[in-house]
């Protein structure tokens, strides 16, 4: 067990002006599951890119030994040949192609000049069995859920006879069930001799699965912990990741004063005419002034559809039901109507439909409320910079200037820009969809602190989240969504992970 399959020694990688990695050493034993943790920007992804040859030999200092041999990869194809496969957070599958086509994409089985499709399908079936994915290989990838797509990616890696599997935040987009499946699969692969490196922000699963953990911080190796010796615990990990102790990840509010009901939804149903399926069924919920309402539920349970349809953007669904804002019945035909009524929606996919990445921080912050900073439809540029700078300091957005393009910011800071954009609208109700997905512990804490400040100032927050601990830590009241219905509602005092999970999977 103790022979290293991989040894990276004294890796230093510099970008113009930044030292992304300095003298990092990283050792993975054969047949183990090794977790790599650290805040965003700690250098995890850079290290993996060095390993997989995205940054070719010569562009970094230090040496890589894989299987006891020094390796000089000049590209991904070299590392693949050596038996290293990397699976990124953004899946690299072609949605319109079938499962078997995807598995053997770039690695086609040929008979003469033509592709041998029969053999391909047969081999795909075999490798799908290995990842315990029970789908027809001829299914199109777009028809599978994210969890299953992830398994197809792993099957693709296995089809190439992989020795070392690297997964970059594989469970970030998965619900608890699929995550559990994936972790079980990694354990099984381990029994068959496949070594895995897992990059994850979810410390719970790290603790659950890791044989050893390496913590990176600011481009340096902080420590490598051995799970068998009992060195791995949440406290230790967090302490090493942030370099300080966070006693409580969820800051407590000083006082809670709940006011009148601000937003109420009654009998809300949504029907998708294309799929011929009911997406949401008879949903009732409300939120009071100064309250954080958590909406828990698995991915695909209809949480995001619920938020989007209330926000006036039902993407072609037929909607039934009523929305009451401060007791008045309202109808939203377009997000604009919802914004005017005092509702803001911070999307779960900030890169996909939240931010305009090619525009700068200030333009993103003012986008939803340009009227506020314009006179007779002419934008006051100076006032805009001022507004943006105010948010930059009040939300602690780390950017050199507000003229920085949003695509250059880290995930946590992008999220703060998203939040700033909607705070500038001065809403009464702020809907946060997965507010802390893919951001590091420090930034999470800041987002939570901001949320607490907002509700203490009288705003109401609806927080949609698949992280149960977050729901339990932040909410005053929890609704559980399952298969498009409200499966239950409970005050936070009565809520436990087990209860929520039971209702969500019911």
């Amino acid at each position, binding site marked *: 067990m103790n022979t290293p399959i991989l040894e990276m020694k004294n890796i230093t990688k510099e970008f113009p002006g930044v030292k992304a990695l300095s003298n990092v050493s990283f050792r993975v034993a054969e047949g183990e599951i090794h977790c790599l943790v650290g805040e965003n920007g700690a250098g995890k992804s850079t290290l993996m890119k060095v390993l997989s040859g995205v940054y070719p030999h010569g562009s970094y200092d230090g040496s890589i030994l894989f299987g006891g041999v020094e390796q000089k990869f000049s590209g991904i194809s070299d590392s693949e040949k050596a038996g290293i496969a990397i699976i990124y957070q953004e899946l690299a599958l072609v949605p319109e192609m079938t499962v078997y086509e995807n598995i053997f994409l770039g690695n086609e089985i040929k008979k003469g000049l033509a592709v041998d499709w029969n053999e391909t399908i047969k081999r795909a079936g075999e490798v799908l069995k290995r990842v315990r994915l029970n789908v027809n290989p001829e299914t199109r990838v777009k028809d599978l859920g994210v969890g299953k797509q992830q398994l197809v990616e792993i099957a693709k890696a296995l089809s190439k006879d992989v020795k070392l599997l690297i997964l970059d935040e594989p469970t970030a987009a998965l619900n608890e069930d699929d995550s559990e499946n994936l972790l079980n699969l990694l354990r099984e692969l381990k029994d068959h001799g496949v070594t895995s490196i897992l990059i994850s922000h979810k410390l719970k699963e790290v603790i659950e699965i890791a044989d050893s953990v390496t913590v990176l911080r600011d481009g340096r190796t902080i420590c490598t912990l051995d799970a068998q010796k009992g060195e791995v615990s949440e406290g230790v990990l967090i302490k090493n990741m942030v370099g300080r102790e966070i006693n409580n990840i969820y800051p407590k509010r000083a006082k809670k004063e709940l006011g009148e009901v601000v937003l109420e939804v009654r009998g809300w149903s949504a029907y998708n005419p294309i799929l011929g399926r009911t997406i949401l069924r008879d949903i009732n919920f409300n939120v009071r002034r100064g309250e954080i309402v958590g909406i828990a539920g698995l991915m695909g349970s209809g949480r995001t559809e619920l938020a989007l349809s209330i926000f006036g*953007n039902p993407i072609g669904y037929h909607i039934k039901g009523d929305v009451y804002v401060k007791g008045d019945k309202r109808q939203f035909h377009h*997000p604009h109507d*919802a914004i005017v009524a005092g509702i803001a929606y911070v999307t779960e996919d900030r890169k996909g439909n939240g931010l305009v990445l090619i525009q700068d921080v200030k333009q993103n912050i*003012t*986008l939803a409320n340009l009227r506020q900073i314009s006179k007779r439809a002419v934008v006051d*540029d100076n006032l805009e910079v001022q507004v943006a700078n105010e948010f930059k300091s009040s939300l602690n957005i780390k950017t050199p*200037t507000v003229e920085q393009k949003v695509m250059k910011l880290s995930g946590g800071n992008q999220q703060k820009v998203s939040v700033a954009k909607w705070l500038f609208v001065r809403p009464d109700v702020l809907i946060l969809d997965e507010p802390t997905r893919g951001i590091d512990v420090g930034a999470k804490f800041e987002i939570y602190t901001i949320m607490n400040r907002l509700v203490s100032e009288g705003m109401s927050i609806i927080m949609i989240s698949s992280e149960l601990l977050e729901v339990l830590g932040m909410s005053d009241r929890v609704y559980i969504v399952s298969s498009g219905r409200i499966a239950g509602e409970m005050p936070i005092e009565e809520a436990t992970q087990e209860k929520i999970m039971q209702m969500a999977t019911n």
Partner: protein
Amino acid sequence: MSFFNDLQKVLRQNIREYGMFIALFLIMAIFTITTKGVFISSRNISNLLNQTGYIAVLAVGMTLVIVIRHIDLSVGFLAGFLGAIAAIALVSWGLPVYIVIPLVMALGAVAGCITAFPVAQLGIPSFVASLAGWLIYRGAILLVTLKTGTIIIPDAAFNAIGNGYIPDIPGLNFLPDVHKLTLLLGLVAIVFYIINEINSRKNKMAYNFEVLSPGVFALKLTFISILVALITWVLAGYNGLSWTVVIVLIVVGVYHFMTTQTVLGRHIYAMGGNPEAAQLSGINVKRLIYVVFGSMGMLSALSGILFASRLQSATTTAGTLFELDAIAAAYVGGVSAAGGVGKVTGSVIGALVMLSLTSGMNLMGIDISLQYIVRGAVLVAAVIFDVATRTSGK
């Protein structure tokens, strides 16, 4: 020393913006040498600008279309068709010019909205929708000119748009060969520009924002002033400002202001950058498609009027390939096919670059076959430059 450091920094940060001007300057310099000065002569430059006019207005509209990630192929024959309608309105219906022009432009806006309808309501790709328009308007030109063939336009006021020049100030006897009003307008423009820049700088300083260092700022003012002065001087040497140039300047001015200063402009660029994010930010994306295609149609009408007026007639082939010239001008001018990026001023410079190439090579007597090849190469080079500076830039 710090002056040069500042200057270097400003140049490096804005290489994309200034690159286009430098390219135009180089092309002009090269042709001036190869044609022994004929290229830069007042007469040729004046002609060049007038020829650019009808493509430039299309390029302005096309900029916005491409910024919102669409394309409009129908604009060339739409321009030709509306030019023919203008001719018919003047000749057969006997309507006066001041009614014909707004009428035709309104028709253009409606035509643009018709193209936009399947795009906005049904999500049909604009390439397909506007390709249909291309075919339909091509047929429409042939249809309306079926009996008459080429329609000669006898209306002097209408023809002045494409051929006439602004009048000179009467009663001034100094500098007999120079157009005094053009000079005066140039001077006014320079003064206005300087005052405007100084005010905006003061305003920024009042907010404690970063501004150009005084040295670089003075250099910028001097440079632009000399540039405007030179252009005015060259134009004043031959008949002065043409009505075409005046119209293009107004169009560019209005669109530049709209895209950079107004809420509408912001919404258009946000939609180009990320349509879903724009929609969720409360922006009515469908409406913007109508607005942008409507404006494109209106500018197509203007282009058609400029062209018909320049030829003093409406022909059966008017508008052929205008759309591709306009699209090329936009790409040369730095508009990104990925959406969300591009300036109307850039596209107009792009149009000037392309027309300068044609004009210069014509003067040199280069065969049309080679001209196409050179223009193609310049288009590719401009886009490569744009992509390279974008990925390496800030």
